[in-house]
């Protein structure tokens, strides 16, 4: 894992001291709310529906046991005993007091964490594939590049007042697990024919009120040019991005209005025109950062564990857990374990302080002290020996964290929605809970197969509904919550924006409507191996529309 050097530690400590002073001046009245707001936002502090909300970065989704324990401590000491993991690989506390936030930030700094640039019109916390550094199919660990971008972008004087927020994601394997094409800049690590490392660069993706899939503007960007090229993109955006209209200020609008070809030309011209020697990454610096992310020393193991196979044969629940929540690791005899934060009927992404401690203990005992946070609001133990899987499973089950539903219909992403968020127009979490109860984690869910449902409580789309195989968008109509359904979205390497089925559904009817969609898929699929997305792409919207609006009693029309 990355460890702070003296500069990092001094920088974060200085930021804590600065914010402590800003809070003191706000409370004393020296700063007005208008003056204070940009300062608190740059430190991840919002005022939400019930209270302040503090958004803490888990850079590229990586946490150590010590850091997870600190989050648990903060949840107990300063909040209400739980935290919420988000689609941005962040952790949000929903009830911190303003007066305590400087102390919370100081506690975070003591474990090399912070909330810097988790809000505001700056380059946000860089996200990455949650199986980074462990996945069997990985080309290269994307996190060193995310760390390099994080260091370069922290308090970058030229890019701290962009037209709007700016999100960068990096993916290191052939399967996109970081939704890179829905980011302002998406970086896919690739190797060219000589084996040299570089990036395929996407620009102008984004969700929100105007969803766009990113445009590929470079097939292969040499590794050393990473910062120089991102710098060129940001310079074009900073100069040409719209500042007159908040809703048209993201880079996706610039790319859309300018055209992807013209954007590519402008970026390449900017990249070529400036002497960027200062931004060319020295090989020794890349190597230095890479060393922090080296695979931990893993004792060689047999590729098959007899202990696992014996348990699998006699324990159906364990077998289901293996099938859904365990993924192949790059080292033989090891596996990646997804800890579902989607218990049946639970709140997606919520973890109690006790659960956080339990997960920290598991990481320490069985996963080389490492954890990941996924954009799908789950946690990951990246380096578990196969022989340890039964013990890990039993301990997860003892704290209610062994739900065998990763990647299934009840592994639902849901934003906080109107239960917490000041911007929301409808609730998300209760819909996720009812769908979870409806489909469960049993035989029916497994029969349905891989299916991503994503729910947002407003058009800002924090719940990624546009890229859900089934997306649900909560809106308010005449004082009532109403839910629009989209189908066929995808956040993987075949990214696509879902299409709206038609008129929305009431809160009462939306679960029936999703059941109708799922039942229609089951009726249409060629066989059990054809997943929802493939079936939708083959048959199109028509049968779903017909089932929803012409045959179903669940429809509102």
């Amino acid at each position, binding site marked *: 894992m990355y460890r702070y050097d003296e500069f990092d530690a001094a920088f974060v400590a200085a930021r804590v001291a600065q914010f402590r002073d800003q809070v003191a001046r706000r409370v*004393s009245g020296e700063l007005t709310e208008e003056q204070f707001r940009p300062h608190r936002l740059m430190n991840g502090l919002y005022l939400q529906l*019930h209270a302040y909300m503090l958004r803490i970065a888990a850079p590229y989704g990586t946490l150590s046991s010590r850091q997870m324990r600190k989050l648990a401590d903060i949840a107990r000491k300063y909040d209400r005993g739980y935290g919420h993991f988000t689609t941005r690989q962040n952790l949000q506390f929903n009830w911190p007091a303003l007066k305590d936030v400087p102390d919370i930030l100081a506690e975070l700094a003591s474990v090399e964490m912070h909330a810097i640039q988790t809000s505001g019109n700056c380059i946000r916390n860089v996200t990455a594939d949650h199986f980074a550094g462990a996945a069997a199919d990985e080309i290269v660990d994307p996190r060193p590049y995310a760390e390099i971008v994080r260091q370069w972008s922290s308090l970058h004087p030229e890019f701290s007042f962009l037209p709007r927020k700016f999100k960068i994601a990096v993916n290191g394997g052939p399967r996109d697990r970081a939704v890179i094409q829905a980011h302002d800049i998406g970086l896919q690590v690739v190797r060219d024919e000589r084996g040299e490392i570089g990036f395929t660069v996407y620009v102008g993706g984004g969700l929100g009120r105007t969803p766009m899939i990113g445009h590929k503007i470079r097939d292969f960007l040499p590794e050393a040019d990473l910062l120089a090229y991102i710098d060129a993109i940001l310079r074009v955006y900073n100069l040409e991005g719209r500042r007159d209209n908040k809703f048209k200020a993201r880079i996706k609008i610039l790319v859309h209005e300018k055209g992807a070809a013209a954007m590519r030309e402008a970026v390449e011209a900017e990249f070529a025109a400036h002497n960027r020697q200062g931004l060319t990454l020295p090989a020794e610096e890349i190597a230095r950062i890479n060393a922090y992310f080296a695979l931990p020393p893993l004792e060689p193991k047999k590729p098959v564990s007899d202990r696992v196979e014996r348990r699998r044969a006699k324990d159906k629940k364990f077998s289901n857990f293996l099938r859904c929540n365990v993924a192949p690791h790059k080292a033989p005899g090891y596996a990646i374990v997804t800890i579902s934060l989607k218990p049946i009927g639970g709140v997606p992404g919520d973890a109690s302080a006790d659960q956080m401690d339990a997960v920290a203990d598991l990481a320490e005992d069985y996963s080389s002290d490492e954890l990941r946070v996924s954009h799908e609001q789950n946690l990951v133990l990246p380096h578990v020996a196969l022989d340890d899987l039964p013990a890990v499973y039993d301990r997860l089950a003892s704290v209610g964290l062994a739900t065998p539903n990763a990647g299934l219909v009840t592994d639902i992403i849901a934003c906080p929605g*109107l239960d917490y968020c000041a911007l929301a127009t409808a609730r998300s*979490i209760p819909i996720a809970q009812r769908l979870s109860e409806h489909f469960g984690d049993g035989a029916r869910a497994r029969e349905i197969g891989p299916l991503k449902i994503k729910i947002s409580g407003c058009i800002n789309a924090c719940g990624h509904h546009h890229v859900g195989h089934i997306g649900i968008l909560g809106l308010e109509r005449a*004082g009532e919550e109403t839910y629009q359904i989209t189908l066929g979205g995808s956040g993987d390497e075949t990214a696509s924006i879902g299409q709206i089925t038609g008129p929305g559904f009431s809160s009462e009817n939306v679960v029936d409507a999703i059941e109708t969609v799922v039942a229609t898929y089951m009726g249409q699929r060629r066989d059990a191996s054809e997943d929802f997305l493939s079936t939708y792409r083959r048959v199109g919207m028509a049968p779903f529309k017909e089932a929803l609006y012409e045959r179903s009693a669940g429809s509102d029309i």
Partner: protein
Amino acid sequence: MSEIVTANRLIDGIVLFQDSAGGWVEDFARAAILPDAAATQAALALAKQDEARDLIVEPYAVVVELRNGHFAPKALRELIRASGPTIRPDLGKQAQGQAPALLEKPHVSLR
């Protein structure tokens, strides 16, 4: 159309309601019910003073209506803000008996 005035306490962000003496209380039941636009305007003017004194932030008026003999915010957003997350009855004002009295079923069943 009756209204109340609400804000968040600066120091901890907790939702507050203006009471009939012009002070601020956490309990919705003690919020002053403002019967008309003139009363709301006067209450907001007072709230603005408290905002300027850095006691509260973001004061605004909320429409309330009588439901089964009790006042409650008309909009779902404001009802949730005055009560707490609907999915966690153990949190927020509802956990402390400070939420609006709701004698009807919640909009979505909470199991």
